C-alpha cells in the first residue's frame, strides 16, 4: 500500500469517503435526516428540507453536501490530470458516487441508484474494457500541440465559470418562498378549519405526523381545489418524492414517448457500436499500420 503513488492513495481515500457517505446518508436517507434533525434549528427552512416544519437538514445536511462536493470535484480533477488512464477512470468512478450522493440530497433517490448502476457500474466498466483492449493505458496528460490556444481557452473557461457561477449564485429557489408562505397559510387554516372535519378525514392518524405537517398538506389540497387527491396521497407524495414509484409513474405516463424513443436509441447504439467496432475484413491490416506511422 505504501508503495502506491500519492495520487493513487488520494484517489482511494476519496473513493472510500464517497462510498462511506453514500452508505451512511444515501441508502437510508431517513436515518441521515433524523440524525440531522436534532442538530438543526427546527424553524429553519432550508433547501434540503422536505416540508415545512420538519426541520429539514441542518448542519448534518451541510456536512454531507460539502463532502460529496469535495469528492466530486477531486475525482473530476483526477480524471483530467492523470497520465494513467486507469487512474483517471477510478477518479471518475469516485465522482459518480459523489454525484449519486448529491442526487440523494436532492430527493432523487431513484436517480441516485441509476447513477451508481449505469454510470459507476456499466459505463465505467466499458471504459476500463476499452482501455484494456487498447492496451495503451499511459498517455501524456497535456496536449502539447497548440498549447497557446489551449491556454487561452483555459482562461476563457475560467472567465466563463466566473460569470456563470456569479449568475447561478444569485438564483433564488421558490421553494423557500413557498415554505414561508405555507407557514402563514397553515396558521390560517388551523384557525379557521373545523378540527372535527380534520378528524373525519383521518388526517391526524397518518404515520404519526406532526399536526402542522398535516395541516400543511391539507392546505395544499384546499388550494388545489381538486379533491381527487386524498389527504393521504398528498402527504405520501410529500414523503415519497423521488421514489421509484413517482419517477416511474411520470415516465410511463407523461414521458412514455421519450422513454420509448430512448430505448430505440439505446438499441441502435448497441447495434451501431458493434457494427463500428467489428474488424473490417476487407481492409488489409498493413495499410492501416502504414497510415498510423
Amino acid at each position, binding site marked *: 500500500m505504501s508503495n502506491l503513488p500519492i495520487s493513487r492513495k488520494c484517489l482511494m481515500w476519496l473513493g472510500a469517503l464517497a462510498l462511506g457517505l453514500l452508505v451512511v446518508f444515501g441508502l437510508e436517507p431517513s436515518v441521515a435526516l433524523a440524525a440531522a434533525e436534532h442538530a438543526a434549528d427546527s424553524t429553519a427552512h432550508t433547501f434540503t428540507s422536505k416540508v415545512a416544519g420538519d426541520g429539514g437538514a441542518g448542519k448534518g445536511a451541510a456536512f454531507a453536501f460539502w463532502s460529496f462536493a469535495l469528492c466530486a470535484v477531486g475525482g473530476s480533477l483526477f480524471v483530467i490530470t492523470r497520465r494513467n488512464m486507469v487512474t483517471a477512470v477510478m477518479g471518475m468512478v469516485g465522482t459518480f458516487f459523489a454525484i449519486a450522493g448529491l442526487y440523494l440530497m436532492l430527493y432523487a433517490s431513484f436517480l441516485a441508484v441509476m447513477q451508481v448502476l449505469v454510470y459507476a457500474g456499466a459505463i465505467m466498466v466499458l471504459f476500463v474494457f476499452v482501455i484494456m483492449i487498447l492496451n495503451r493505458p499511459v498517455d501524456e496528460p497535456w496536449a502539447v500541440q497548440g498549447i497557446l490556444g489551449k491556454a487561452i481557452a483555459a482562461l476563457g*473557461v475560467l*472567465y466563463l465559470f466566473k*460569470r456563470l457561477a456569479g*449568475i447561478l449564485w*444569485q438564483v433564488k429557489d421558490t421553494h423557500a418562498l413557498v415554505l414561508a408562505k405555507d407557514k402563514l397559510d397553515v396558521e390560517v387554516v388551523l384557525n379557521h378549519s373545523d378540527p372535527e372535519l380534520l378528524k373525519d378525514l383521518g388526517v391526524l392518524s397518518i404515520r404519526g405526523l406532526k399536526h402542522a405537517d398535516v395541516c400543511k398538506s391539507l392546505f395544499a389540497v384546499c388550494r388545489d381545489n381538486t379533491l381527487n387527491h386524498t389527504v393521504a396521497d398528498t402527504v405520501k407524495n410529500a414523503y415519497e418524492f423521488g421514489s421509484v414509484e413517482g419517477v416511474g409513474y411520470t415516465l410511463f405516463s407523461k414521458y412514455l414517448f421519450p422513454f420509448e424513443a430512448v430505448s430505440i436509441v439505446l438499441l441502435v447504439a448497441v447495434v451501431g457500436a458493434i457494427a463500428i467496432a467489428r474488424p473490417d475484413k476487407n481492409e488489409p491490416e498493413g495499410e492501416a499500420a502504414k497510415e498510423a506511422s
Partner: protein
Amino acid sequence: MQQTSNLLFLIPLLPLAGAFLNLFVWRVLAPTTGKYRQSDALTHTTAIASVLAAFGLSCYLIGVPLLEEFRAWQKLGDAAPETMGGLHQHLWTWIEVGSLKINLAFRLDTLSAVMLLVITGVGSLIHIYSVGYMHGEKRYPAFFGYLNLFTGMMLILVLGDSLPIMFIGWEGVGLCSYLLIGFWFDKTENANAGRKAFVANRVGDFAFLLGMFLLFYATGSVEFADLQEPNSIGALKEVFWGGERMGFWIALLFFIGACGKSAQIPLYVWLPDAMAGPTPVSALIHAATMVTAGVYMVVRMSFLYAHSTTAMAIVAVVGALTALFAAIMAFAQTDLKKVLAYSTVSQLGFMFVGVGVGAYTAGIFHLITHAFFKAGLFLAAGSVMHAMSGSGDIMKMGGLRKYLPRTRWSFLIYCVAIAGIVPFSGFFSKDEILAGAFGAGAEGWGPVLGKFLWATLSIAALGTAFYMFRLYFLVFGGELRCDEETKAHIHESPHSMTSPLIILAAFTCVIGAIGLPHLTGDLHLPTYLHDWLAPTVVDFKRDSLLMANGSPSIFEAHLSNGLTIGLMGIALAVGLIGIFAAKAIYGKGPSEKVAAMCETKNGKAIYDVVLNKFYVDEFYEWSIYRFFRGAANVLYQVVDRWLIDGIFINGSAWLIKKLGQGFNLFQNGQVHRYLVALVVGGAIIFFFASSPTVSFKYEQVSTNVVEFTPDFSSGTSIGGGLDAKGALISFDLDADGEPDVTKEYDPRNPMKVKWTFGGVGEYRVNMTMTDAVFNKKYSVTRTIHVKDLTEKGGAQ
C-alpha cells in the same frame, strides 16, 4: 354656341383609312406573287381619292354649316360672344382618370377651317404630283400610305379639340415625317436625317408635354374651350416662378414645342437635312403643312400668349432672328432643295414674328400664301430634279427655261411671290407681317422692339428676294452646265406633275386677295381673312387683357394710310433690290466675282461660315450628340460595368469568397481548435454582455402630475439574464427610501405611473426593478423637474 356635326370625324378618318388600305389591306388581298406587290393604280387611286374626299367634305362643312354660323356670329356685331364654337364632334372619352378627362373630340372653327383647306387642298395636289414623281418606285404603296397617314395626322392636329388630341396629331406627323424623310433608307444619311428630325421634334414635344402638364396644374383642364374660361385665365395671370406669370412659362414651353416642329432657332437644324426625303414630302410636310403646325398652335393658343407679353416678345424675336439667319445661310447653298429648306425656315420666322407681335391674322395669312408658293417651289424643284436625273446641284444646272417651260413659268411666279412683288400673294402677307411688326407694341416692350423686328425682317426679305432669284437664275437662266449624259435625259415632266404646279401658281397669284392691306377711310379694302379669323383668335380688347387703367396690354397697330402705303413701298423696293442684285450677279450663271470674293482670305472665312450654316450642326454634333454618346459610354462602362457590377455586385461576391477562404483556415479538422473557438467565443459574448441598466422616462401631463414610464431600451443585453417580464418595478417618489408604487412589469402593456407632486420644483425619484428570477435589484435615481404648465400654456 356650337353645332354638333357627325361628319367631322370623317375628315381625318378618310386619309387614315386610305393609309390603312394601302399599307395593310391591299397587301393582304393583293395576289402575293413576288414581294407583296400591289398595283400602282390601285395604290394612288386609293390615296388620292381619300384625300380628295376629305377635301370635298371639308369644303362642304366649311361652306355650308360653318359659314352659316359665322354669318350669324357676324350679324350679332358687338353683342357676339368672344369666341365662336364652330362644329364640334365628340367621339369617345379617350382617357378619364380622376380630375383628368380627355375627350377624343374634334372642333372645326374658322382657324382650323383655314388649315383644313390648306392641308387637304395642297395635299391633294401633292398626292397627284407624286403619281408622276414616284413612278417606278419599288415601295410605291408604302409611300402613298405614309403620305395618307401624314395627312390624317395633320388633320387630327388641326381639328383636335384639346391639347392631348392635338398632341396625337403633333407626334403622328413627326412619325410620318421620320418615315418619309428616311424613305430611301438605303443611304445612311437619309436615315440619319429622319432620325434627326424625329429627335429634334421630340425635344419640342418634351416642352409641349411639360406645357400641357403645367397648364393642367394651373387651370385643371386641357380643352381649348375650358381654357378660355375666366377661371382659367385668372390662373394664368398668377405669378408662378421667377417673378413671371404662369402664362409666361406655359407659353414659353409651348413655344419651345413650336420651335421643334416649325424649325426655329435653336431647333431648326433638322429641316435642311430633312430634304433627304422625296420632294413631294418636302413640299407637303416641310413646306406647306407640318412645319406650320407650330404657327398654328401659337395662334390656337393666342389667348394664352396674349396674357404674357414677355412670351410674345420672345416668340417674335426668335422668329425674326430665325428669319434673318436662315436667309443668310440660304445664300451659300448649292443644293436646290437646301436653298428652299432655308427659305422655309426663314419664312416660318416671318410667321412667328407675325404671331409674336399679335398680328395673328398676318401670321396665318403668310402661312397660307407660303403653303401655296413654297409647296409649288418644292414641286417645281422636284420637276427640275426629275429632269436632271435626280441631281439637285444648282451649279450644274442653268438654261433650263428652254427645256422645262411649264416648270419655269410657275417657278418664276413662286419666286416673285416669295420675293414680295405686287400683286402676288407673298407681297400682301409679308407686308402685313412687316406692318404688324412696325406698329407692334405691348406692355413692357419698350418703343424700339417693333421697329427692330421690322428692320430685321426687312433685311431678311431683301435676302429672300436675293437668294430666290439667285436660285432662279442659276437654274433657269444662263447656259446649261451639266454633263452630256444628263443633258440627253432632260425632259419636261408629265402632266400629272406639272398640272399641280400650274394650279398652285394660279392660287399664288390670286390668294393675296383674302388679306388686303388694312387701310382706313375711303381706301378701306375688304379684309376677309381677318374677319374670318376674328371669332377664333384672341381679341386684345377682352376684359381679361385690360390693364388696371383700362387700356389693353397689347395694342394693335393703327397705322395711318400713308404710313401703311409707305411701308408697302419699302417692302416692294426691298424685293426689287434683291431681285436686281441677283440678276446682276447671277444673271448669267455662277458669278465669278462672288467666287473670287470667296477666295480672298476674309471672304473665304465668311463664305465658309455661311456655307457650313454657322457651324451650328457641328456645335450640336459636339455639344449634344457626342456628349450624349460619351456620357452613355461612360455611364455604361464606368457606372454600370465598373462601379455597380464590378465593385458592388461582383465585389461583394469576391469579398464573401475571400472571407470564406479566410474562415477556411479555421477549419483544419482539429477538434481542439474548434473547441477553443467555441470557448473563446462564449467568453467574448459573456464579456460584452453587461449587466442591465434601467432607466425611466417621465412626462408632465398636467399641473403637478407627472407620468413615469420604465425604459429598458438601453442596456438590456444578452447574457444579462434580464427579461423585464414579470419583474417588480417600484417607484420611490417622495425620497423617503420606501417604495410608493410597486407594479409587475408587462412588456406588452408598458406601465405608466402617475404621481401628483406638491408643486413646481425639483424632485429626486428612485426607480427600483426587482428581477423575477434572481431577485436582483437594479436601481436608478434621477432628478425631475415639475414645471408650471399654466405659464407655458399662456405663452402659447
